[in-house]
C-alpha cells in the first residue's frame, strides 16, 4: 500500500511539474522578450503584470473548433500531438532534482540513454503531423524536421557519452553523485555543443527552420487548431524545461552548489535550469534564423569535431588521473 502511495505521489508531482513549468517558461518568455524589445508584454490578464495570460490562452484554445482537413489522414493527424508531447513527460520522470532517492521520479539504470532515446521519439510527432496534414507547407516542415535530426543527433549523443565516460556510469543519479566542481571547465565544450544541439532538437531559434512562420507558416503545425495546436506548443515549452534540466544534470552539476547541498539541493537544480531557460529565450530574441544547410554545415564541421575532441580530452584526463 505504502509503495503504491509513493509511486502515485511521485507520478502526480512529475505531472504537476510537467503542466506548470512550461507555463512559467512561456510567461517568462513573454515578459523577457517584451523587455528586450522595449515594450511591456501582457499586462491585463489576471491583474498583476498579466500573469494569467497563458491560462487565458489555454481557455481560448480549448474553445476553438477542432478542425481536421478533408484530405488529411485523420487518425495520424489526431495522434501526432500526443506523440510529440508524451516523450517529454516520460523524460521528466528520470531527471533528478536533488540528492538521494526521494528527489527523482524514477531511477533509471541507463538514464542517459533513456532520456536521449525517448526525446528522439518526439520527432516522430512532427513528422506525422507534417505528412498527414495534406499541405505542402506542412510537408516541407516535416522534411526540415527530419533533415535537422541528421544535424543534432550525433553531437548530442557524443557529448552525453563524454559525461558518461567521465562519471563511469550512464545513470543520471550516478553522474551527479560522481560530480566534482572541476568537471565544469573539463566538460565545458561538451556542454555548449549539447546545448546547441538541444536547441536544434527543440526547433527553437536560431534553429526554427522547421516551423519558420514567415517562410512555411509554422511548418508541420499549419493545419492544427485549438487544443491540438496547444499541445504542440506545450511540447515545445516542455522541451525547453527538459533540455535545461538535462544540461544542468549532465554538465552543470545538478544539485551540487557552493553551499546548502543537504536540504537545498533542488533549489540549485531549479536555479541553474532557470538560467539556462533564460538563455534559450535570450537567443530567440538575439539571433536570426539559420538556413537548414547552414545548420548542417555548423553541425558537421563544428559540433561533431568539437564533441569528438571533447571525448578525446575526457579519455586522456580519465587515464591520467587513474
Amino acid at each position, binding site marked *: 500500500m505504502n509503495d503504491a502511495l509513493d509511486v502515485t505521489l511521485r507520478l502526480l508531482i512529475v505531472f504537476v511539474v510537467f503542466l506548470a513549468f512550461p507555463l512559467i517558461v512561456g510567461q517568462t518568455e513573454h515578459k523577457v522578450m517584451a523587455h528586450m524589445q522595449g515594450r511591456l508584454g501582457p499586462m491585463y490578464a489576471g491583474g498583476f503584470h498579466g500573469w494569467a495570460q497563458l491560462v487565458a490562452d489555454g481557455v481560448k484554445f480549448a474553445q476553438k473548433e477542432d478542425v481536421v482537413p478533408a*484530405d*488529411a*489522414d485523420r487518425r*495520424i493527424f489526431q495522434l501526432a500531438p500526443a506523440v510529440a508531447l508524451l516523450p517529454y513527460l516520460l523524460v521528466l520522470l528520470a531527471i533528478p532534482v536533488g540528492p538521494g532517492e526521494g528527489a527523482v521520479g524514477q531511477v*533509471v*539504470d*541507463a538514464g542517459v*540513454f*533513456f532520456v*536521449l*532515446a*525517448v526525446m*528522439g*521519439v518526439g*520527432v*516522430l510527432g512532427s*513528422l*506525422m503531423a*507534417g*505528412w*498527414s496534414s*495534406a499541405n505542402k507547407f506542412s*510537408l*516541407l516542415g*516535416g*522534411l*526540415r524536421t*527530419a*533533415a535537422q*535530426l*541528421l*544535424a543534432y*543527433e*550525433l553531437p548530442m*549523443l557524443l557529448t552525453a557519452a563524454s559525461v558518461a565516460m567521465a562519471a563511469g*556510469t*550512464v*545513470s543520471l543519479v550516478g553522474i551527479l553523485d560522481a560530480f566534482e566542481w572541476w568537471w565544469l571547465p573539463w566538460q565545458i565544450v561538451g556542454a555548449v555543443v549539447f546545448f546547441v544541439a538541444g536547441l536544434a532538437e527543440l526547433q527553437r531559434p536560431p534553429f526554427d*527552420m522547421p516551423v*519558420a512562420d514567415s*517562410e*512555411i507558416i509554422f511548418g508541420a503545425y499549419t493545419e492544427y487548431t485549438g487544443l491540438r495546436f496547444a499541445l504542440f506548443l506545450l511540447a515545445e515549452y516542455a522541451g525547453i524545461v527538459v533540455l535545461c534540466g538535462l544540461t544542468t544534470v549532465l554538465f552543470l552539476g545538478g544539485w551540487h552548489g557552493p553551499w546548502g547541498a543537504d536540504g537545498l539541493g533542488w533549489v540549485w537544480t531549479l536555479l541553474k535550469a532557470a538560467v539556462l531557460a533564460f538563455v534559450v529565450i535570450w537567443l530567440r530574441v538575439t539571433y536570426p534564423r539559420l*538556413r*537548414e*544547410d547552414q545548420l*548542417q554545415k555548423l553541425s*558537421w564541421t563544428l559540433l561533431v569535431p568539437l564533441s569528438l575532441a571533447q571525448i578525446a580530452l575526457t579519455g586522456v584526463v580519465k587515464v591520467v588521473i587513474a
Partner: protein
Amino acid sequence: MTLAAASHGFLSPTGVEIAFLLVGLVTFGAAVVTVTTRQLVHAALWLVVALGGLAVEYLLLTAEFIAWVQVLIYVGAVVVLILFGLMLTRAPIGRSPDADSGNRWAALTVAVASAAALVWVVVDAFRTTWIDLDGPAAGSTAVTGASLFQNWVLPFEALSVLLLAALVGAIVLSRKAKAARAGEAPPAKTSPTGASSSGTSPSGASSSGTSQTGGVR
C-alpha cells in the same frame, strides 16, 4: 526441453511471462501489418510499433541498456530516415495501388523459412538457459558492458571495421555521383537563398546521415 520444464514448468506462468507473450503478439501483429498495408507511410509507422514492442520485450528480460539503444537507433533514427526518404520521394495520403509485389509468395516462403531456421537455432541453443528475473538484473549496463568488452571484443571490433567500411563507401559513392554530374553539365554555381535551398540541402546530407546512424550502431 525436459530439463528446463522440470525446473521451471510451463503451466504456471508468471505475470512477466504473460506480459511478454502479449507484447510479443502485438509486435508480431504490427510487423505483419507493416508488410501488408497498402499505405506506405502507415507501414513505416507500424514499423515503429513493432520496433517499440521489441524494446519492451528487452525491458521485460531486464536488458534495459539494449532496450533504450533499440529505441534510440531504430525508432529515433532509422525510422525517421525512412520517413524522410518517403517524404522526399513519394508519400501519398491513402492507398498506393502499386504498393504490391508479384513476388509475394516467394517473399513469404523466404520469410517463413528464415524465421523457422532462426527459431530452431535459438531454441536449440538456449533451451536450458533461464534468465533469473528476480535476482540482480542480468542485462544492466554494467553487465552488458563487461561481457561485451571481455568476452566479445573481437566480434565487436570486427563489426566496427565493417561499419567504417560502409561509412567510407557511402562517402565515395556520393562523391562519385557528384563528379559524374559535374562532368555532364557545366557546374552552375547558384547561391541558394531562403526556402529554396532547404529542399536540396537535406538530400545532400542524407547519405552522410545514413552512414552516421550506422556508425552509432
